[in-house]
């Protein structure tokens, strides 16, 4: 593993196009997040005006002058080369999914696998746009993960709500702690 500067703490937001990565980072970043939004010409995949071509960047300054860096990856596979670049020395990954998308299950598989299944770098999953009062979709995803042999936290998340994004961050911090203390004892 690479050595990590003591004041480096990096959280990655990833997931398919249109899952709300930019919105989530904006929800908790100190200042307006830096984004690399460009005009989206692939309306068939996702009907939105802009999409991230390189990365999103936000930060949260801490009182001891250190800072937490929040990076969002582009979602599309053609930008996959950006993923390892951004993942370098990451403390944790938040995968965001669009619960409304017909390929939701494939997206889960794809991103969980591509970002290491939470084995080396802790991972939390937030699923948006789920129907209210029906947890069956979330339950199905949880079973899918169990069959895969990975136990990852899975929450229904509205990325426009700061509290929902904070819950993902908090769960991720708990996992990082569990990992961290476990490693010290090993």
């Amino acid at each position, binding site marked *: 593993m690479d050595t990590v500067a003591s004041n480096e*703490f990096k959280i990655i937001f990833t997931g398919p196009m249109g899952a709300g990565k930019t919105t989530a980072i904006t929800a908790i970043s100190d200042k307006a997040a830096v984004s690399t939004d460009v005009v989206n010409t692939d309306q068939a995949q996702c009907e939105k005006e802009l999409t991230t071509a390189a990365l999103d960047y936000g930060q949260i300054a801490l009182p001891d002058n250190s800072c*937490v860096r929040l990076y969002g990856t582009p979602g599309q596979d053609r930008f996959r080369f950006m993923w390892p670049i951004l993942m370098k020395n990451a403390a944790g990954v938040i995968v965001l999914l669009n619960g409304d998308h017909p390929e939701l299950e494939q997206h889960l598989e794809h991103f969980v696998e591509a970002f290491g299944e939470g084995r080396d770098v802790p991972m939390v999953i937030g699923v948006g746009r789920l129907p209210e009062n029906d947890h069956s979709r979330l339950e199905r995803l*949880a079973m899918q993960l169990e069959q895969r042999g990975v*136990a990852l*936290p899975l929450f229904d998340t509205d990325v426009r709500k700061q509290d929902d994004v*904070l819950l993902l961050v908090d769960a991720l*911090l708990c996992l990082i*702690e*569990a990992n961290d203390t476990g490693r010290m*004892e090993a």
Partner: protein
Amino acid sequence: MTNRRLAFVGLGADTTSACLSMLKIMDGRSSIEWTQSDPEDADVLFVAHDGDNGRQQWESKQKPCVVVYPSSEDRPAARYTLPHPFRVMQLLGVLEDISCTLGDTQTVTAAATPTAVQPHSSFGQSLKELLQTPAGEETLYRSESPLGQLYVAPSAGCYYIEPALHQQLRSKELPLSALHEVHEPLGEQLARRPIFELAWFTAQHAADALAPWLAPAGQFKLKRWPNFGSIKNDRLYLSLCAMLTRGTWGRQQLMERTHCNAGQLDRFLSACSMSNLLINDSTAPTLASEAPQVQNAGRFGSMIRGLRNRLGLGS
């Protein structure tokens, strides 16, 4: 106290010793004392699924045979079966069934204390059992209370409840009856909720914090994170889930690490167990408090505290 003998045929040493140590745990909770004997003298036999010869030989002698099979395989066609690895409650369950046919009565000392949970009668226990045995896609179970009823669909991992009753369930204990299978259509007014939530509310109001079928001195691990539903905003439970999905821990260790009290921990473990998320290994040794306390002392300790403060996530 009745004495009964059991014997093992064709089973590995690990299975045999797990079984014997579980029987030790049960000692005192059951009105029957089980001792190991030769197959010839035994009242009950535990036989290996793959050892067909032995199985047929003993089955023909009209002795009850418990067929032990790997849990990864389909349940064999036999009257008494036990998937391996098994838990105390599963072993107790099968022995109880057998002792009924042997003519024993009152297998579990249900009246020992007023709050003791009687198997098959408590709602929590029936919920746990339903979720452990895979049921058909459509099978539906119902529980009644004076304030209304709810339905559980184990294979879908959810329960159905009227919104008004859901409110009641959240705030107080409902005298819910044990779940039983029904064949009826679901009403339109029912909300579909994740099963963990039901287990959670049930555990919050249970008389004993730790479910009676869990071994307090055992090791615990979570199979997966629960679907918290409406009870997700508590750091303690996030921490417990994080620890229990990344390792196996004893109760003492969990309490030390997360600074929670026994009641909080036990209710959480009970809820996880009821919803079939918990692995409770009663035979593993507990390494309680041998490990140094290093809460938040890792690489990221101060960073995490700082970030939580900064985001208003409390300490």
